[in-house]
C-alpha cells in the first residue's frame, strides 16, 4: 500500500505480524477495531459493526496504520475504480504520444496525486488525464490525446 494513501471504506486489513497490539498503548475503541480484523471485513463493515461514524473509523484505522499494526490485504471491488483494462488503454495511448518515458511520467503523476494505479478512482481520471496531457509538448497531439481519452472516459462512466 503506498504511503500517504488515504484509508478508504472498501479497504481490507489484517493484523500485521511485525508488531503486536500489546506493544502499543491502544484506546478501547482501537482495541475494538483490532478484535474485528480478520483480513476479510472492510473498514466500512467494521465501522458498521462497532457503530462508529465514518470519520471515527477512518481516524482509528489511520492511527493503527501509523503504529504499524495493520497490513493491507486488498480493496473490495468498488464501482469507483476504473477497470485495469481502462488503465492499460490509457497507458498505451499516452505511450503513443510521449514514448517510452510514459511509465515514468505516469508513476510520477500518480505519486503527486498521492495514489497508485490500484487506488486511482474514476472521479480522478479526468484530472489525471489533464495532468498527463500537459507533458505532451505539441498542442495538436495534446488535444488529440485528450480527445482519445474523453471517449474512453465517456465509455468508462457509461460502464464499459
Amino acid at each position, binding site marked *: 500500500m503506498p504511503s500517504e494513501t488515504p484509508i478508504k471504506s472498501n479497504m481490507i486489513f489484517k493484523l500485521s505480524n511485525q508488531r503486536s497490539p500489546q506493544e502499543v498503548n491502544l484506546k478501547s475503541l482501537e482495541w475494538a477495531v483490532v478484535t474485528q480484523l480478520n483480513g476479510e471485513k472492510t473498514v466500512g463493515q467494521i465501522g458498521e459493526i462497532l457503530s462508529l461514524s465514518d470519520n471515527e473509523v477512518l481516524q482509528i484505522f489511520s492511527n493503527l496504520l501509523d503504529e504499524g499494526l495493520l497490513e493491507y490485504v486488498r480493496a473490495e471491488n468498488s464501482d469507483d475504480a476504473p477497470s485495469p483494462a481502462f488503465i492499460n488503454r490509457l497507458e498505451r495511448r499516452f505511450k503513443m504520444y510521449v514514448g517510452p518515458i510514459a511509465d515514468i511520467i505516469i508513476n510520477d503523476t500518480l505519486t503527486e496525486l498521492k495514489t497508485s494505479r490500484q487506488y486511482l478512482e474514476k472521479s480522478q481520471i479526468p*484530472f489525471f488525464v489533464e495532468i498527463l496531457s500537459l507533458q505532451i509538448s505539441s498542442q495538436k497531439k495534446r488535444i488529440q490525446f485528450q*480527445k482519445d481519452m*474523453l471517449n474512453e472516459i465517456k465509455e468508462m462512466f457509461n460502464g464499459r
Partner: protein
Amino acid sequence: MIEKYFQNLCEIDGIEAFALLDNNNHIIGTWTNSQYDSPIFSEIGESYLQIFGIEENLKFHVDEIVLQFDRGLIFVRRHAKFLLLIIANSWVDTSHVRLAANVSIFDLEGSRKIQRALNKLPSTKPNRFEEMKLDDVEYFMINKIVESGSAFGNPD
C-alpha cells in the same frame, strides 16, 4: 446548432447549459438542458467580458475562470474571438469540463466554415474601465488615498 460542435460537453452528466458569445456580448449560440435562457447568458457574459477586457489590458494571461455559485459552477473559457460560458452542477468535475472544452474549441477552430465566421468577429474585448472618466473631486480623493495609503487620510 452549437451542440453539433460541442457534443463532448452535451454528453457530460451535470452540464446544464452553455453559450458562445462574441466580444460584443452577442450570443452566437446556446444549448441548454434546463431553465437558463438568453438574458442570463448575456448578463453573465457582460461581467466576464469586462473581466477579460481588463485582464487583456493589464497583459495578464488568464484563459479560464471557474466560479461556484449557489446552484453549481460557471466555467468560462476565453478565446480571441469568443467566450465559451458553461453552467454546470457543482458536482461536475472541472477537469472533465476543461478536457471537453479544449477538444471542442480545437475542433471548432478546425472547421473552415467556422473559421470564416470567426474571422468576421471582433477580436478585442471591451475595456469598460478605459471608458470611465473621473471628475475633479473623484480624482482629488483618489490622489489623497494613494498619497496617504488609507481611505481615511493620513493620521499625521
